């Protein structure tokens, strides 16, 4: 029996799976409209998501940073995006401007404002592409703090683009309505991961 013990241990070790942590530290990412739950995430068939921002735009680096941050929140490539040169082929159009659509979800800081307009039909449970993101400075572009405001706000807006349709109640998260955290918090990350491993109730239409 003793001789079998090392072999048994080796066999057990050879068959063990990694121990996945529980995902418990999350906030509600859904949009509840008239008691109806709207949950959206990009299907893998539409990855990578095509994002357009004008070449040379002062917010282009913030878009790249925000996309990288959210991509790195995932371990299995659940969300991936790429920048495209032609806005007519984009799933997401980002502009350094005041929204000409209105009614979107976004964030407000003293230095800059962001807004994400998702054309969701709550009756049909559809999201029509493209998604429009606007971000602009409400003070001079050279005002101290504007760079940080752009970085935080764009990360917040891309959080809406990936499918977080609500705001975090925690001020330590970038998805807080008036975010201060420049990055993706552990709670933001776990929320996004949970979102992508639950069924979506909203399907994508338009373009492609």
């Amino acid at each position, binding site marked *: 029996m003793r001789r079998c013990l090392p072999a048994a241990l080796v066999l057990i*070790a*050879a*068959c*063990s*799976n*990694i*121990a*996945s*942590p*529980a*995902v418990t530290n999350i906030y509600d990412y859904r949009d509840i409209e008239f008691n109806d739950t709207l949950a959206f995430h990009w*299907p*893998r*068939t539409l*990855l990578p998501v095509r994002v357009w921002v004008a070449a040379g735009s002062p917010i282009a680096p913030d878009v790249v940073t925000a996309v990288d941050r959210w*991509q*790195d929140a*995932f*371990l*299995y*490539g*659940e969300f*991936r995006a790429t920048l495209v040169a032609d806005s007519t082929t984009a799933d997401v159009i980002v502009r350094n401007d005041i929204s000409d659509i209105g009614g979107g979800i976004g964030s407000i800081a003293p230095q800059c404002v962001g807004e994400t307009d998702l054309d969701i039909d709550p009756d049909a449970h559809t999201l029509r592409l493209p998604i429009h993101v606007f971000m602009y400075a409400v003070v001079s572009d050279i005002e101290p703090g504007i760079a940080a405001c752009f970085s935080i706000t764009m990360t917040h807006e891309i959080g809406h683009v990936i499918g977080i349709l609500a705001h975090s109640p925690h001020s330590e998260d970038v998805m807080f309505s008036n975010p201060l955290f420049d990055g993706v918090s552990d709670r933001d990350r776990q929320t996004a*991961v949970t979102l*992508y*491993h*639950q*069924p979506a109730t909203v399907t994508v239409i338009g373009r492609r």
Partner: protein
Amino acid sequence: MRFPTLLLAAVACAAPLAAQSALRVSAGATYSSALIDDGVLSTKLRPAIAPTAGLGIAIPTGKGPYRVVAEVSYARSALNVITTTGTGGNDRLAAVATVTTLILAEGAFHGAFRWQVGGGAVFYRPTERQGVFQNGGTRRWMLAGGVVWRHPLTAKMDLLVTGRVDAHTFSTDVLQARGYGQSQSVQRFGLLLGASRRL
């Protein structure tokens, strides 16, 4: 195809080292079990079957039938994402290359068959920094074993067919930072066709 070409050139140009030492080249395919089997997210990350090329040297140990084989092999394949709940769908991520270095003991087994057993290291090198490889590659220690069938072709050349199995545990810095405990046991199975040239 540059790597296999270099291997063949190395065999052809090899200078004699010692009697009965042999240089080996091989090519084939490697199947791997899942690098991650995430029970909470119901997701598996498994490399596709990988084309594999190898180069090794076999050195006899004294007068017995035993040899020491030092071997390096290269494989590369895409990473398949397999979800088991139907919420995410399946996907294919950027390719990951593995460089495997092994030291094996080899001895006679039965007829033209020879056994191999040993260990070494496998180096994972992602072609893109994403997902579990967003901080780059990783190195894992491994155990390996196999069977080699040898068939003489000429006075100096043998045909080799190698069946190989190896095992290692897998984890990365990112997985550990995100609270993934222990590590995933990974088994790989390789089938390689090669040639051996006595030096």
